[in-house]
């Protein structure tokens, strides 16, 4: 039997990945796409609370 991929619980970011992450953390971008996406997510979850 093939085992499923192990779940790595820690993501380590370095160098440019770390810089991009910190820039996003300190200056999160509010886009209409994201607002709409999260609104849809809220609606779907509200209709399917598990």
């Amino acid at each position: 039997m093939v085992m499923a991929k192990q779940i790595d619980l820690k993501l380590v970011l370095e160098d440019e990945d770390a810089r991009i992450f910190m820039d996003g953390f300190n200056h999160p971008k509010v886009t209409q796409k994201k607002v709409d996406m999260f609104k849809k997510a809220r609606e779907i979850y509200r209709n399917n609370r598990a």
Partner: protein
Amino acid sequence: MDKISGEDLRVRRLNNHSNIINFCSVNDDLNNFLKDDALLAQDNMTSITYLCFWRRVVVGFATLVAATIEVKQVEGPRIDGYAPNTYPSIKLARLAVDKNHTGRGIGPHLLFWVMGKFEKISKEIGCRYLTVDSKRESMWFYEKYDFILVEKTRNKTHPTFYLDMYLTRGKK
């Protein structure tokens, strides 16, 4: 096949009575996880799996775990009283759709449901990022929903993405 309306899909937590025996995605690892490991992991409180039903048949599933993001070698302000450079996240550890129902909107439905679940959790426990280790053939899917690719992992078997869920706070 036609898209399935979101109104016809139901998401429920996996339990001892869930009939998962007929579920079959194109990925054997994911099938094996659901049938052999998911319930045990849930009993051990190491992951929780949610099933997506259409007409009482399991057509997809998603598995969530608590996770962290550690940031190395970056200068900048620290958050008082908080472990430096470690950020709380939730990991979408598994996401699969039955191979007989691919392309019918089940994957996006589950992903949006997970985002909604994230918002609920983040109101009670601090967490800001949704992370995922993607299959290579699914990278387009996460890019479509504005997940950020960790460049260092681009050429790995399972490239890693994260999504900043910051907007879920205060934006109703």
